[in-house]
């Protein structure tokens, strides 16, 4: 685990005044540098890439039927243990589990990325606007965030999923539009300090207006915070989708996601059908740990202070 404060005995390297000039090269070079230095981050990134290839390219090489129970049952039986025809066994509907991990993984990853994308865009815009205008606009917008943050996320997501009946699109929207609060707070905090800096005043003097200042000058300067938070958001969205799957509000059958697979599997766990739990469980933990590793390394590189962890 690479951490800025790990080595207590070594004197702190002299920090450049104002914290500027620590980066060597552009954003890309900076990120690359961290990844080379931090082995766990490399492992995490590799796991993510491999999992994406496995889920999205895997079905090209490994054909299974994952939509019709009848067709699936032509080639297999229900709840059969791992064998040469079904390397990870089959589930209670006769679907091949290896193929289903790929199929469900596509949805888990899609929801993770899409929801994190929505949450990041909404949160960044909301936070930047709130911080930039300040005054009563800021006070009002931040009270909205306070109110939504005080409703436990899982409760809010369940209420919305019940009201709007879950489908893939609704799930992405519900998770995305409930997870934007943390990025909004973080970006707002940075905007408050950025908007009084010289370069923003310079843009103002040159006649740059609000939207231009926010979009071209303030948001790009918070990119470190945004990227780090977005990485954690993907991990959280995948876990949240899994929790929704467990309370029966996951993607409707015959579609599935890792969480729904797991919660179906645990119903049969007492019968000793271990192959219905462990593959999906391992897949979720692996991917979420990988995103957390990458997020941690990125945070160290950008020297971003976040509320969590």
């Amino acid at each position, binding site marked *: 685990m690479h951490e800025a404060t790990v080595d207590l005995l070594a004197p702190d390297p002299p920090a450049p005044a104002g914290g500027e000039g620590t980066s060597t090269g552009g954003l890309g070079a900076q990120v690359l540098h961290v990844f080379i230095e931090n082995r766990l981050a490399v492992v995490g990134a590799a796991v993510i890439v491999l999992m994406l290839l496995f889920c999205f390219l895997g079905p090209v090489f490994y054909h299974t039927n994952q939509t019709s129970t009848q067709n699936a049952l032509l080639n297999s039986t229900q709840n059969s243990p791992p064998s040469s025809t079904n390397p990870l066994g089959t589930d209670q509907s006769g679907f091949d589990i290896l193929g289903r991990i790929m199929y469900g993984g596509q949805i888990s990853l899609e929801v993770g990325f899409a929801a994190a994308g929505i949450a990041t865009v909404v949160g960044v815009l909301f936070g930047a606007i709130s911080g930039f205008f300040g005054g009563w606009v800021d006070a009002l917008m931040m009270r909205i965030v306070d109110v939504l943050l005080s409703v436990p996320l899982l409760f809010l997501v369940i*209420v919305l999923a019940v009201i709007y009946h879950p489908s893939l699109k609704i799930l992405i929207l519900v998770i995305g539009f409930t997870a934007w609060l943390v990025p909004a707070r973080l970006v707002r905090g940075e905007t408050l300090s950025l908007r009084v800096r010289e370069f923003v005043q310079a843009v103002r003097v040159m006649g740059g207006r609000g939207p231009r200042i926010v979009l071209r000058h303030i948001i790009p300067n918070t990119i470190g915070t945004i990227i780090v938070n977005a990485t954690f958001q993907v991990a959280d969205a995948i*876990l949240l989708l899994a929790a929704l799957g467990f309370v029966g509000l996951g993607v409707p059958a015959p579609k599935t996601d890792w969480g729904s697979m797991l919660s179906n599997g645990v119903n049969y766990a007492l019968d000793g059908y271990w192959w219905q739990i462990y593959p999906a469980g391992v897949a979720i933990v692996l991917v979420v740990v990988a995103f957390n590793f990458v997020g941690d390394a990125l945070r160290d590189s950008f020297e971003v202070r976040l509320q969590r962890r």
Partner: protein
Amino acid sequence: MIGYLIRRIIQAIVVVFGVTLLVFLLAHIIPGGAARAALGQRATEVQIRDFNRVNGYDLPIWHQFWDYCRGLILHFNLGYSYKRNQGVSSLIQENLPKTLVLVGISTLFAVLVAVPLGVLQVVRRNKPIDYVLTGASFVGYSMPAFLLGELLILYFAVDLGWFSVDAPQANSVWGIVSDPRGLVLPVFSLAAITIASFSRYMRSSMMEAMTQDYVRTARAKGASSRRVLFRHALRNALIPIITLLGLSIPGIVGGALITETVFNFPGMGLLTYRAAIDNDVPLLLGTTFVAALATVAGSLLADIFYAIVDPRVRYA
């Protein structure tokens, strides 16, 4: 300090008002409205109009909100569960104390375990035990809560038979506390994820405290490393944990929903799960409202406690 407390309490009241408005609005975005939810899809237009008139749903929306707030303040009226033919408040009153017991015990347990773990990792930093615990905490908070619960049941209740599969089903709080065989697994399952994130936070908080000037001063005066660790570093490293505790309440309450469902623990979380399954929106909104109230109260308490504990904080 007094000024800070007053401002903080006013802020909490504003947030509670906002939560009330949010819950009220959520009840109104149900497609078809409350009448459809209560009477079902086959109700006629006339039945719906009657229902709306009797229940005041034909009044202007601000008037409805006013009635809702008044009912809430005067009678703690959270609405009516048509699916269960019972007031939402009375359902919650039955279940809330049990959840408070579960959440309370498991959070206390989590802090008692996480703090020593974090300290141990600092004492043995960059040694095998540090890496093992760091790895374990990463897996801990990357694991779906229900998976952990089910695995605990599988190994410790079914295979080994040490604990019972079901949580205590007693109706009273005392009945639940006096059944440790049933309570151990839910408490541990809910605590595990909190332990994972708290111990990680404790580690970095402790690490930061060790670099402070007062630690160097204590060392220079010849204090033993044990004394430096526990008297000087630990006491200061614990302060941020108070804030973390306040911030973690929504997560813990959400975790209770999953844990109670896994272990069939008869609390608010299980009630919420059943409401979700039954499409019982009034009950769902009621439990959501109470969960949000608990969060606001918890973070208010954490902030007040922080202001008392940390003398450096001078709130003007």
